[in-house]
């Protein structure tokens, strides 16, 4: 895989990104208390995405990985921090620049059964982004672009598929159609939110291969969101592991998986299955589940579940720093 990402000229750089939501409270408690609690879904992220890079945001549910993806795409308004796209501060984007940005950046969702409109044909699904942006002059040009996007997404004989509906396609074809819908605008950047987790194993590899090929051929950069660390390792150049809205570790895919620094990453890596008979009996697992992001623990937010926690961890938040060359972590004891 490629590794020479132009470091001084990243496609995206994220500085202190924060996304808070007001927690929903019941009617009664809203009468007796004026305090609204905040869900700190994304709580200060710093990272860069190189051109042509695949960066994985990995974490369990509630870690804030999807929120991060949406905030970068401005599908959600960030509470704080900056995102630079091609060197431009996105906070300064006006409507027309944001409109242009929406052509340059795309998203692929997890479930191709839900993300596609069942009443739209293949053609109109893929043609819609072109129409919205007035990008084609006539019907034949539109057909040309749609056919091209379908082929790019690995759907051969595109013109035969034009009039089909999503239910006539298989799961793999549907996800390819969703990808074609993203590719038709020729984006530089795609947020892929668990793009293969609904797909059967035999179909998965084809979709992953397609995404890597698109990176290699067209230089598309990906923010690949997944809960599956072995998949992250397989597909990405670098992995950022998130826990409760923060990155706890970031490094090259091999560094993070083969020599994890943070106790949370270590725990996650220890439960990655391998194709062998390995019993779970006697294996030390993390206890409990990710806590509610309304009540984020003090100090290091991982300390209540950390097997290596010390008194200091509950008092002082660890600094996120470069521990080894290009391998970052946030823990007092690494």
């Amino acid at each position, binding site marked *: 895989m490629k590794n020479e990402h132009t470091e001084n000229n990243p496609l995206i750089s994220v500085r202190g990104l924060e996304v808070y939501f007001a927690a929903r409270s019941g009617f009664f408690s809203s009468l007796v208390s004026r305090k609204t609690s905040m869900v700190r879904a994304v709580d200060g992220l710093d990272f860069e995405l190189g051109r042509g890079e695949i960066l994985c945001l990995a974490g369990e549910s509630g870690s804030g990985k999807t929120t991060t993806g949406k905030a970068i795409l401005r599908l959600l308004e960030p509470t704080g921090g900056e995102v630079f796209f091609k060197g431009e501060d996105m906070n300064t984007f006006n409507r027309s620049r944001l409109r242009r940005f929406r052509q340059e950046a795309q998203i692929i969702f997890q479930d191709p059964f839900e993300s596609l409109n069942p009443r739209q044909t293949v053609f109109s699904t893929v043609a819609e982004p072109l129409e919205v942006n007035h990008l084609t002059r006539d019907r034949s040009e539109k057909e040309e672009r749609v056919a091209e996007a379908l082929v790019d997404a690995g759907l051969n004989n595109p013109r035969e598929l034009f009039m089909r509906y999503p239910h006539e396609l298989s799961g793999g074809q549907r996800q390819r159609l969703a990808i074609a819908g993203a590719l038709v605008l020729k984006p530089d950047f795609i947020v892929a939110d668990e793009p293969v987790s609904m797909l059967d194993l035999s179909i998965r590899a084809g979709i992953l291969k397609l995404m890597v090929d698109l990176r290699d051929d067209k230089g598309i950069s990906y923010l690949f969101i997944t809960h599956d660390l072995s998949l992250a390792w397989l597909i990405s150049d670098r992995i950022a592991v998130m826990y409760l809205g923060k990155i706890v570790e970031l490094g090259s895919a091999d560094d993070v998986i083969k020599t994890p620094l943070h106790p949370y990453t270590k725990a996650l890596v220890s439960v990655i299955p391998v194709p062998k008979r*390995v019993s*779970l009996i006697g294996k030390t697992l993390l206890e409990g589940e990710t806590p509610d992001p309304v009540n984020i623990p003090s100090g290091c937010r991982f300390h209540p579940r950390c097997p290596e926690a010390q008194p200091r961890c509950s008092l002082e938040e660890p600094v996120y720093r470069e521990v080894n060359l290009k391998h970052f972590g946030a823990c007092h004891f690494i």
Partner: protein
Amino acid sequence: MRLLEVDNLTTYYKLKDGYVRACENISLHLERGEAIGLVGESASGKTTAALSLIKLLPDNAHVMAGSIKIEGRDIAGATEEELRHIRWKDIAIIFQGAMNALNPVRRVGDQIVEALRIHEKLSEKDAGRRTAELFEQVEIDSDRVREYPHEFSGGMRQRVMIAMAIACNPKIIIGDEPTTALDVMVQAQVLQLLETLRREREMGMILITHDLSVVGETCDRVAVMYAGQIVEDGPTEKVFEAPSHPYTRALITAFPNIEGERYLAASIPGDPPNLLSPPGGCRFHERCSEVSELCRNEAPEITDLSPGHRAMCHLLQRKVKVK
């Protein structure tokens, strides 16, 4: 005597345009304390096969053939009344979506108490005590019996489902994708709990999953299903080390192995066949990289490879014949 012996189980679904041949000639056996994984992609027939065992099938399903014996007793012809008994005390099932399987408007404890009162004929008080014990066994604080399903996290709800499944001391537990929607760490916790309970209670377990990795962590043996048939079965180590059916091989290659090399495996071309009219010959031939003329015309027979390890592929038969 074997705990469970299934021979040539065949279940079809009747539709307007014919029969969906969801599972055909499924043969399985299970010893006490043993776990077998039934692995396959969506629509491979794994759930149909397992639900056929306790006849929890929709009305249009027909068990066409086969025998099912629990400790030698044939239950294929069991009446509805007998089945009700078999379902909790012989075979219990853990479903995938605990939120859908639990009644949202009843306290979780009461749902277990009800089962205990009906099936074990316990008094209200004894059933309550047993429920508290069951909660402890699945590592939930027994005070939580009075809570409602929505007050539990996903992992905790799945533990409640396990408590319910083991309430009547079943001999066999069927787990239908019991950890699929859970986070990785919680999944490991639940699987660890299941394995501990299985060993303590010497239960047999049938784990239905699309995820080969779960099998490596929990099952002694594995049966790989494709298009309604078992294409390979054997001890888990054997199947992982020496997968013999091209489909099994492709599945194992598609599995990212962090101890091995980092590369993207080729995917299996095409899609699983429509079981209303499955392809002739070997059902995998349209997607197989090693297909020959024979595969298109003739269905392969099951070939014994080593004790307990079998696969259904023409290539293997040829190899055996040459020897």
